[in-house]
């Protein structure tokens, strides 16, 4: 098992990169909505992304965020 500092040493930059990519994707979506003249506002996948960000930003009792996200993005069991 890695120490907490080692986890950050190994994965901080990678996580930073992925978060910036998510931010860029949301910006891209917003610009597309703003410039679309046909009233295409996307669909509920964008809401799933925002819901997933809430899961990421919450302090969890148990480290199961990836499991929670997979359930969020899953169809009915």
């Amino acid at each position, binding site marked *: 098992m890695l120490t907490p500092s080692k986890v950050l040493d190994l994965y901080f*930059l990678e996580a930073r*990169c992925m978060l910036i*990519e998510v931010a*860029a994707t949301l910006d891209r979506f917003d610009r597309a909505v703003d410039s679309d003249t046909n009233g295409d506002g996307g669909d509920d996948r964008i809401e799933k992304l925002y819901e997933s960000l809430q899961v990421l930003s919450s302090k969890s009792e148990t480290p199961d965020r990836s499991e929670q996200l997979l359930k969020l993005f899953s169809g009915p069991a």
Partner: protein
Amino acid sequence: MQIIQPHYHAIARTAQDYERMAMSGVVAVCEPAFWAGFDRKYPETFIDYFRQIGEFEPTRAADYGIRHFFWVAVNPKEAENPELSREVLKKFPDFFEMPNCLGVGETGLHKSTANEAMIFEEQVSLAVEHDQLILIHTPHLEDKTHGTRRILEILEGLPVDRNRVWIDHAEEHTIRPILDAGYWSGFTLYPITKCSPKRAVDMLELYGRERILVNSSADWGPSDPFTLQECVCEYRRRGNSLQDAMEIFYNNPVRFLGQNPKFDLPLLKVEEMREEAEAPAEQPAEEPADRA
């Protein structure tokens, strides 16, 4: 499609990169001087390094039909040693005379220390004195915002022609002041630490393509020279024309680098290339009857 790699550290890469670049349309690479991963102790080590990227790398590139150009500089990390830096700077004019040397780069800042700023200023002044192009490295990660601002402040006090200065490694939080001040801006595509191909295309959509260069800065660390081709694909996938792609990934480097007459690649138009490709081949002269 023809592509120019404007910022590429070939010394750190294998010949296979050259081969794959040639196969994917790269016709020229430009190699700025950079940090070797450790601080060099002797001026002569820099001089031999400049000889390697100025004399030897062009022969490796030529094996694959790629033109190779280079830049000389003391990088910001080693600029922390002013005595060593000044000894190296004395030799720059010898390299400016070479037929494939484009100017001073990549100079700039790393941690924005007083020594770094002093040697950066001296290198820019030397470039101006010798009418050379200038390529500037902006710092990494958490140091980028402050370092970019310091670079712009330092340049403000120097007699540079802003159209001959390329400030590289810009991202969403630093591109605007660079372009607003009239400099060229570069996006450097890395797998993790700088800009991604998708974000680069976002910025192209937001800021347009004027005074923008895109490069993949392949080096000895985690990097991927083909992020540039990935960016071309992403740009085309969003519905942009082949000519628009050529303007960014080929013609813009020609526009900036061509301000130094040594960089003599022509501007290209897709239509003219098509006409050339479709023109009937010249018929060989009829052979004399006695040789039939």
